[in-house]
């Protein structure tokens, strides 16, 4: 074949010209088909609602809820201890590198920024008519509430933290003071109070969303952190709280699985997948999958036992206080949760107990009796036997466990059907706390009779109708007789502890009461000293002279707040570490 050079040349040159012509602008503009951009979102009201839902989602995280807020609220009070990887909490040597703190910090700020940008987007959506004014206001209120609540827990845990109030900050703001942060909480909650819906009008299908009442509760507490007790009283006395929320008649019912989102609960974190065996991490990363309540159960039953109680907490309940075994159970105590009894007939009904009793299983080879044999030789129905408490396989636990976290009848721990993860909501704020906080405000403002009246409301319920006039702990931690508590502030602190321990607020409330108050209170409860290792327990069935994971370390001066996470400092060098870390 003869190739004609002339034609080829012309064709080639045309080809060379062709590319730049075909090189239209859109050759370089590719469409994003694997992620949604802003243009594709917020065209309908569900998208705007979804934007706010994602702020709630930030709290569905075990590092944030359990390993940061719950640990701080409870381990720091020495009512509870950790067994496992986080025992640094037991002697107040939490490191700035403790990973969960960073997750807490991170999720809280993600929520804050999500709220900041939601405030902007909702405002636009309202203007454009994508959402109605009514829905728009509710959503704005939720965003203010959730931002305020995040700052509330951040400042309560770390002291002052940086205030970020815009949607796209550079992330390098230094810390504000604790007072500035709580002032922001007050401001946000006040906005929320006007915008949110009242509990009375929130549709049942939206249960779990923030309400005006919840905003007043957090505002009041934030005012107390600022020492503004009169303003706090105003918030606590608002009818959105006093008319719409009530103490449940029976204390045991407050934490029952069948009573979630109850009439006493002001705000709780919602979970939604029942009875899961999944270890896929849903319980860590914002998934609906569940909560790790059975991690607190005895190792004998759950295979975990990662946290356990201080025996002294059980002894400190005044005689007749029905809160005792609804809060903590130990050797010889039955689980009195109606839900657990209905499903299993008590501890004796769990498969691992039945099998273990049958096989004479011992959790530890040093044991004299089978782990599941009761003091009477029959199958055990108590949280360990008096003659042989449940110390766990390595004998490092106290034998006492949290009854508030043993309510979900679907769970079996890592035994039986291995249903580890449940869906029980976690109550962050409830009306009893409001009443006790109000009592403290009244003490602070000199209204002692008013304070005692508020305490009585809570105590009457605790004692099944009518509390003894004299307030007095059952026994000291080492089994000695006690004297009546007469100082009004100490009465409030004692009620904080006995009503709210094992939940999400105790140590926050103790620290809120002022410098040194918490350390003195804990010292008095547990006789803390300079020891930094576990000490033999001096009293009760677990006083065998051996070590069972009970520390008596005093709360060091600077360690009533947590260290700023090291990683956060690394990414924002303007953050200054708290002293002593």
């Amino acid at each position, binding site marked *: 074949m003869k190739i004609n050079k002339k034609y080829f040349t012309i064709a080639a040159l045309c080809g060379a010209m062709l590319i730049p012509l075909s*090189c239209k602008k859109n050759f370089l503009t590719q469409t994003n088909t694997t*992620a949604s951009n802003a243009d594709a979102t917020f065209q309908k009201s569900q998208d705007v609602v979804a934007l706010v839902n994602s702020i709630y989602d930030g709290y569905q995280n075990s590092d944030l809820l359990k390993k940061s807020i719950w640990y701080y609220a409870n381990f720091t009070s020495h009512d509870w201890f950790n067994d496992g990887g986080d025992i640094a909490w037991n002697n107040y040597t939490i490191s700035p590198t403790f990973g969960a703190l960073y997750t807490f910090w991170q999720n809280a700020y993600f929520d804050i920024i999500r709220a900041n940008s939601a405030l902007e987007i909702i405002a636009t959506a309202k203007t454009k008519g994508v959402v109605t004014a009514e829905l728009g206001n509710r959503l704005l209120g939720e965003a203010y509430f959730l931002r305020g609540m995040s700052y509330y827990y951040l400042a309560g845990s770390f002291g002052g933290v940086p205030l970020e109030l815009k949607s796209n900050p550079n992330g390098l703001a230094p810390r504000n003071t604790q007072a500035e942060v709580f002032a922001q909480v007050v401001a946000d909650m006040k906005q929320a109070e006007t915008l949110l819906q009242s509990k009375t009008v929130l549709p049942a299908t939206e249960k779990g969303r923030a309400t005006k009442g919840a905003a007043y509760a957090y505002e009041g507490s934030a005012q107390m952190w600022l020492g503004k007790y009169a303003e706090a009283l105003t918030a606590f006395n608002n009818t959105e709280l006093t008319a719409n929320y009530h103490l449940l008649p029976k204390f045991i019912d407050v934490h029952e699985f069948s009573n979630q989102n109850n009439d006493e609960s002001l705000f709780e974190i919602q979970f939604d997948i029942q009875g899961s065996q999944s270890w896929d991490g849903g319980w860590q990363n914002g998934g609906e999958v569940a909560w790790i309540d059975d991690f607190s159960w005895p190792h004998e039953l759950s295979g975990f036992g990662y946290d356990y109680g201080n025996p002294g907490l059980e002894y400190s309940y005044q005689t007749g206080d029905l809160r005792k075994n609804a809060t903590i159970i130990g050797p010889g105590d039955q689980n009195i949760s109606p839900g657990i009894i209905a499903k299993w007939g008590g501890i004796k009904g769990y498969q691992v107990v039945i099998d273990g009793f049958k096989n004479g299983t011992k959790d530890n080879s040093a044991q004299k009796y089978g782990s599941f044999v009761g003091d009477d030789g029959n199958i055990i129905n108590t949280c360990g036997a008096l003659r042989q408490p449940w110390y766990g396989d390595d004998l490092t636990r106290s034998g006492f466990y949290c009854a508030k976290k043993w309510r979900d009848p679907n769970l079996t721990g890592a035994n039986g059907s291995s249903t580890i993860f449940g869906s029980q909501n976690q109550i962050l704020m409830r009306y009893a706390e409001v009443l006790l906080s109000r009592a403290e405000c009244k003490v602070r403002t000199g209204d002692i009779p008013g304070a005692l009246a508020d305490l009585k409301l809570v105590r009457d319920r605790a004692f099944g109708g009518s509390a003894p006039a004299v307030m007095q702990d059952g026994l000291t931690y080492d089994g000695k007789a006690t004297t009546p508590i007469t100082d009004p502030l100490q009465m409030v602190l004692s009620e904080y502890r006995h009503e709210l321990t094992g939940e999400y607020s105790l140590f926050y409330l103790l620290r809120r009461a002022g410098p040194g108050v918490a350390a003195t209170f804990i010292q008095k409860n547990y006789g803390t000293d300079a020891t930094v290792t576990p000490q033999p327990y001096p009293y009760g069935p677990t006083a065998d002279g051996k070590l069972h994971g009970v520390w008596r370390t005093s709360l060091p001066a600077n360690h009533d707040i947590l260290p700023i996470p090291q990683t956060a400092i690394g990414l924002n060098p303007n953050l200054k570490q708290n002293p002593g870390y």
Partner: protein
Amino acid sequence: MLVSMSGYAQSKITGKVTGADDGLPIPGVTVKVKGGAAVTSTNTEGTYSITAGSNATLIFSFIGYTSQEVAVGSNSSVNIKLAPENKALNEVVVVGYGSAKRSDVTGAISSVNAATIAKVPVTSLDQALQGRAAGVQVTNNDASPGSNITVLIRGTGSLASGGNTPLYVVDGYPINAGGINNINPSDIASIDVLKDASATAIYGVRAANGVVMVTTKKGKKDGGAQVEFNAYNAFQSKPKQYDLLNAQQFATLANDVAANDPNKHFTTLANWASPSSLTNADWQNAIYRSGLTQNYDLAIRGGNEKVQSSTSIGYYDQKGIVLGSYFKRITVGENLDYQPTKWLKSATSAKYSYQNLNNPFGTGNLGNINQLPPTLDGGNKLTSQIKDANGNYGFFNPIYTYVAKNNNPIYSIETNQYKNINNYFLVNSSLEATIFDGLKFKTNGGITYTGYNGSYFQPSDSRKIDQYGAAAGASGTALYSQHINSTFDWLWENYLSYDKTFGSHTINFVAGVSQQESDYNSLGGSVTPPNNTIKSLSQGTNLILDANTNGAVNNGEVKRSYASQFARLAYNYASKYYLTGTVRRDGSSQFAPGHQYGTFYSGAVNWNVKKESFLTNVNWLSGLKFRGSYGELGNQHGIGDFTYQSLYSAGASATASGNLGYAFGKVGGSNGTYQAGVASIQPENDNIRWETDYVTDIGMDASFLNGELSLTVDYFNRKSKDFLLNIAASPQTGYNTLPSNVGSMVNKGWEFALNYNHAVNSDVHIDLGLTLSFIKNRLTGLYSGTNAISNFGGLGLTGDGWSEFTRTYIGQPIGEFYGYKAIGIIQSQAQLTALNSAAQAKGNDFYYKATTGVGDRLYADVDGSGKITADDRVALGSPQPKFFGGFNLGGSYKSWDFNAYFYGVYGNKILNYQESNLESFAQRGSVSIENVSKQYYNNYWTPTRSSNRYAAVHYDDTDYGNLLPSSAWIENGSFLKLKTVTVGYSLPQDLVKKLTLSKIRVYVSSQNLFTITKYTGLDPEIGTQNANPTQNGVDNGTYPSSRFYTIGLNVVF
């Protein structure tokens, strides 16, 4: 003709032409009479016969050899030795969109030819560059089969993962990162590494990290056909192992720890009470084996003036030294060149490769082997062995918390099924037309296709439940996962070139346009299969499709396109003064509309001093050239697509982890209703722009002794600005990471390449080569406002304080190790009391922690606060070497050839994380225990056995801080390795000829024969992990290297 016949007496001249390097006859040498018409060529024996006048001069020329002119005088026989061409000056180097004689090049270019590549059996051509090209640092990140390799040309300019990868251009086609592994090294004719701006600017936004031009072998025009067969088998020995405790020692240690644990937290297993009764589990012995590599290449090459063809088939099969690891590759290559008319020619390069790779215990995971407790007693009730004669695998006691979490890796490797298959095509064709003398038009089009198919199958495992019941936890469910992805990439380029010499003025001009688009598609997920044979996503239950994360698309399609225009003008005057200017305007879809284009350029000068009259007669100097260049180059590696867009995500599905929604409406014990959530995962940032490198190069090329000795020296200064990174963000921004232009860096350095090539006589030939590179890297700025950047990129080292192990401050080298300064062990209570008192005097509670005791590690209180806190951490040394280089020692004697090749680095530090594990009894980050080294066991501090190096043993170190990232784990990483030594023998020609062959060479070689180093770990050659320079030089259990013993054969038919 008649005239000359009458003027001179004609006579017949005969002779033989042999190679000055090997003394072998050279067939096909053109022999010409100078000024006359007579021409002939040597026959297969290298002899020739030509008719010439007396006093004629004969010209001998042959490709690859220096032409020689010989005055015949009155001789009738002229035997000559042709010297191989002086590589330094006359070889042709491939530059972007063209080629040039080395002597005419203005840029800094290092070249490696086929002969050099053939000297070392390598899997990938990257490895062939190690130490051979000055300024190019090649590190085997680990020694696994088909392993990943880091190639850094002139240092680290970017912090992005993969952000320092050079551009590879195979036969004119710029391929995507990673593709180079598909090219069979024995198909390669030459590798030209373009290093400075003058050489690389023609590749614009992909030029900053240097460009590796790969040219594959073509057929020759000489009318002959050559069949070549190469084979080798390499036996690989078991690697060096850590000296760890056996079962008896370990149980003894465990009992001691339990007895001394103040928290009474740790208890031992009952049957460990009598250590002598335990069965030893030697995990290293079980996991390591000897390896075997087989490689076979068959090629046929040849052609005539019109058509040249080269076809090759290669098979590579490596069984790795770690159980379950292997790499198999089949390659097929074809080059076809066709010139139908004088003015039109075409060239086609087609490459196919099939790869099958597996490495169940990759880098990092191998560290776990050393951590496993050395006994399985009390586990599987059927056997305490790792695997017994009946095929039962041991497992750890599932009830005893401290070992329950460990798995038997031998069981996993032998039971689980892995598949990682890659298919790769590269087809590229060009058509070149000479329109008139000097003006050429070329169109070049091609595709690459990469197809990956991977799967993993893990059968269900109920052994523990069967033996221990519910207390053993949940039974292991089966899992099947499959991932398929493909990338289709096409390229079309048109360009014009004009080359012309007018008197003393020479012009080379090229200008054109280029378009390239790649289309990535992927699909992947996992299911619980119904039984142990079904491998189908549709047959299983619990289907979970892989989620698209920000920056990684696991399900879906991503397209990426480039449009570019480029031009280069080179001018020289009398081959003395050279000027080159290059420009490229690149457009990329990865940036926001309106910000898609960037223009990059370079300018260079070159002065060939040797051509100046004052040096013409300086005979000792054969060549001298000075070069200088400056340019601005782009880099866009490491940035994902659509990083400029504001993106929202609904997270994972309602039931999966990581969803962003929430359930409302729960009443009592009933469930609520899940409502979807949406959150911003990336804010809009239109200002994302190219990384720009400002590169200066000053170089000198000199040669001496008729070119036998050559020296190239280059100084470079590379300033990288605006490097692109998806960087860890302060959580206060609302994001984990934010893509942005992050900061700036500078790399300055010197490169030296020295070569000596000398034929002592026809029997003895010497060949020496030395490269040395000195590179100083500094971070010069961060735009985020922070003054330092910590390690990021996924290398998770567990343990207290180990989330941060490198921190690079502005002004310091990238990836500098960071931690506490270990200064010994606390020896006495008095010393501890003094430390605590001093701390308390400054308002602290304790010197370190309340629990710190005698026998624990002592750290320097750098900030003088009295207490050891995170603020006492300091820079502990850089993983970047002060210099590195290669030394080649080659020679031949008659039919024997010899080559030894050394590679070394000097002045770098290694973070021996592995050592910290070998001194840790608790498995950090988990309630578990692990094995320790004998060295530690025999030396750790006890009240009766003092040590200032090995801290006391504790169950959980978190309370004591002996294992924090500290100078205790920093070691000198300098090494010198004898990478390879080879002895070859070529069979005598007469024998070969009897076999109707042209050449038979057999050789034996050994790799990694010895390493000189002070490093105490297994192998000091440790690279970056996940191609991230902030996690460089960390030994967390890399796949070790060991000796290879190779026997090989080259046959040419």
